[in-house]
């Protein structure tokens, strides 16, 4: 905030003059990071809706996705879409393994929900440190997968990478919505999440639906991992902070609501990027949290309330 004094010498106040070009770039950056948050938040929301578990390891599943993608690329140079596919696969497998090996046995022992939530924190610690053993503690540079030349879109020069992230993110979310609305499996998952007993009576295996929920949630997170990795780096600790932010995004939209997670993620990405550009880089995370608390005060269940059971 101290730069107001100096701006007298530089002609018109520099801080206030945000060019349209900058605005478009910030908007695109916000949307891109927002898509990544949305993908992770979707998984968090799906898991909460199906099992009531606050899944704190979702960020680490995303990190495993990023690592799976970069490892596949090291083994054989391949186009970005294939790297993304490997990331999706890696995230999905990691998520299912964690569910089958840890949450399900804990659930069978009928431990309280809070214990399972803390166990997800344990999973997060284990995954981070296993990743550190396997992939080392240095950040890994993702290969340049896009043309680095600026892309001209409607008269503005924009980074093609950001555009691709937004396009791929939206495409994946669209595919998820289609899966939920048009396939038997997707509808069965929704049913099991809304009312487990009724679903059971309709012949749906709730246990299988839960595993499937973790699989889809992990795949979303894996995709987010590759997208985020391509934007910055891949590293063993990339997941935790991002996962927490995705949590906030999911809460913003309304925990357990699928459209809420999408909107919440985009909103949080935009808030973060714009407050970083306009207010202060050191407090950009705080702005997001203040918005979260204000929205929760006005609408305690978040922007989108979910039908069915109450949290």
């Amino acid at each position, binding site marked *: 905030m101290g730069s107001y004094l100096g701006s007298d010498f530089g002609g018109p106040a520099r801080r206030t003059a945000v060019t349209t070009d900058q605005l478009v770039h910030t908007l695109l950056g916000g949307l891109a990071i927002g898509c990544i948050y949305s993908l992770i938040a979707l998984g968090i929301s799906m898991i*909460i809706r199906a099992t009531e578990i606050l899944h704190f390891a979702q960020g680490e599943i995303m990190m495993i996705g990023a690592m799976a993608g970069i490892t596949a690329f090291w083994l054989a140079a391949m186009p970005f879409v294939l790297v993304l596919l490997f990331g999706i696969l890696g995230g999905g497998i990691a998520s299912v393994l964690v569910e089958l090996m840890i949450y399900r046995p804990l659930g069978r022992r009928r431990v309280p929900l809070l214990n399972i939530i803390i166990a997800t924190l344990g999973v997060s610690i284990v995954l981070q440190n296993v990743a550190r053993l396997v992939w080392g503690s240095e950040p890994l540079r993702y290969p340049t997968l896009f043309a680095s030349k600026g892309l001209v879109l409607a008269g503005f020069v924009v980074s093609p990478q950001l555009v691709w992230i937004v396009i791929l993110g939206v495409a994946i979310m669209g595919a998820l919505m289609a899966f939920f609305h048009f396939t038997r499996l997707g509808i069965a998952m929704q049913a099991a999440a809304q009312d487990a007993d009724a679903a059971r009576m309709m012949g749906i295996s709730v246990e299988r639906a839960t595993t499937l929920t973790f699989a889809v949630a992990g795949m979303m997170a894996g995709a987010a991992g590759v997208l985020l990795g391509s934007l910055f780096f891949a590293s063993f600790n990339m997941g935790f902070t991002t996962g927490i932010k995705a949590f906030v995004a999911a809460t913003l939209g309304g925990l357990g609501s699928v459209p809420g997670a999408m909107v919440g993620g985009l909103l949080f990405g935009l808030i973060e990027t714009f407050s970083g550009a306009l207010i202060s880089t050191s407090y950009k995370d705080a702005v997001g949290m203040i918005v979260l608390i204000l929205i929760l005060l006005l609408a305690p269940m978040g922007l989108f309330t979910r039908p069915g059971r109450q949290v």
Partner: protein
Amino acid sequence: MTLSVMTAGVTTVWIPRLVVLAAIAAVPLVEHNSYWLHVFSLALIGAVLAMGLQLLVGMAGVLSLGQGAFYGIGAYTAASLAIAWQAPFILTILCGGVTAAIASLLLIPIVRLKGSSLAVATLGFGIIVHLVMLNEDWLTGGSIGMMDIPLPTLFGANVGGEAALYYVCLVVAAVVFLALDRIAHSRFGRALVAISQDEEAARASGIAVNVCKSKCFIVAAFTAGVAGGLYAYHSRYLNPNDFTFLKSIDILIMVVIGGLVSLPGAALGALIVVLAPEVLRSSGELRLILFGALVIVLMGTGNRGLAGLIIDLAASARTAWQRRASAKTEAKA
């Protein structure tokens, strides 16, 4: 209730407590290594933190992910007072608690949120407080932190040695235990338990739910602030990164490992969370993996945690012993 029953209740409660207290007090007599005393003091500070959170999570059933923030506020307050005015440490530690309690008033509006939303809101609060500690150089020294915190003195005598500080932490932990134990058995404590079991039923029974929850947040924050004050003298160097979201998680893990029902359980959990990384240090890179795995495995012990497990084991050992004893007498007969 007859007098004999009451005295029996008092002895069964107080004799084990005094035995444990004596055992903890004897530690510096046996262990002279100052490094380990330092770690044990930290475990006692952890116990204070965990007991404070136990009130929120274990009794009122409110999941708070921001306890680390109050710990930090207490630590920075105590350190600033000690550095600026050489204030006596009992005063600075109390001020740490009071400041944390005042800061917790900010949380009162969000108390009416439910379950997961409340948890995420406290998480957001913790992140905001951490960013303030990190960025407000004039207040906290920013990312460099706060150095040269003076040694604590009590009535002119220096209590900065490892053993002396250990006893200071022990006294504070014991006082906090007694105070929280009183609260747990008061009308207020019973109201909290009622809220955790069924909020609507509690409200219908005339309990002011939001007022009780707010009070609970304030007491927990005060306790965390006191622990923070102790930590300032214990570490003598404060860094914002000591008070991140991860610290809040650490405190929560302590409470849950120990079991969500009892104060001694919370203290036991603190001992494990502080000591486990030290004990596992020899396993090098595997240390944190083992710690995470330990957390997962301990979560399988149910809501009574390790404390419950120990009580169960003791009970089954006692019945086995009695059975053997009665079998012997029968054999003799």
